[in-house]
């Protein structure tokens, strides 16, 4: 069951992204920025949490879920450390993904050659 709700939720979020790409001609960089900020705002408003509850990875794997993790981390650290948590919580919660993306990409860049453009 969790697979079905993840598929549907992730599918819908990506289909919304496709509407933005087709209708607004936004570049993928702008789409990614829009989705992470949307995730942050929706989580802040308490709207994204129920979507995560129902959709599981369907809501956390898209970049809106990255925004969700940032806010969850900030709130957790504000509860534990007060004001300082505003600055420490977000990156703490997302550190694994960011560090992995940077390090694996560095390895890929060191090992692989760019393909020849024709």
């Amino acid at each position, binding site marked *: 069951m*969790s*697979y079905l709700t993840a*598929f549907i*939720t*992730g*599918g819908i*979020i*990506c*289909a919304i*992204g*496709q*509407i*933005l*790409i*087709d209708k607004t001609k936004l570049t*993928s*960089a702008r*789409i*990614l*920025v829009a989705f*992470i*900020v949307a995730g*942050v705002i929706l*989580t*802040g408003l308490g709207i994204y949490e129920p979507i995560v509850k129902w*959709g*599981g*990875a*369907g809501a*956390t794997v*898209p*970049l*809106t879920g990255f*925004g969700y993790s*940032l*806010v969850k981390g900030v*709130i957790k650290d*504000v509860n534990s450390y007060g004001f300082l*948590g*505003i*600055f420490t*919580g*977000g*990156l703490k919660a*997302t*550190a*694994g*993904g960011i560090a*992995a*993306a*940077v390090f*694996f*990409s*560095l390895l*890929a*860049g*060191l090992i*692989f*050659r*760019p393909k020849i453009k024709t």
Partner: protein
Amino acid sequence: MNQQFTKDEYSKFVDKKSPNSHLAKDMAWAFIVGGIICTIGQGIMNFFTARGLPKETVSSITSILLILIAVILTALDLYDSIGKRAGAGSVVPITGFANSIASPAIEYKTEGYVMGLGAKMFTVAGPVLVYGISASIVVGFIYFLMH
């Protein structure tokens, strides 16, 4: 000149893939591919949750594994092939974020390891982190004032 071309080309590869295709067909592809990537993520989550790992650890492991898969597919030049059909289905998931870092890392190593590989990998990821982190700080500040 050449640098500008390749940068634009990368960020617009989805837009250019099929200029005359219909929205419904694009959305169906985005839905299916995005759905499949999230289902794989759910599989990883279920696997580690069943092994008794805490929720936050599971979520970190899931992101790291999906990112690893995406970087490997990017390095083998397969991720862009998926993207030509999938559009937003391959851009919006965290794998698309990983692809946006790995792709220029490979592409720009010829411009040097510091200002090429090291700097260009953040062409897309940089803005994503800048606006994502900043927005979360604003939300955190509001939350702090309310509690």
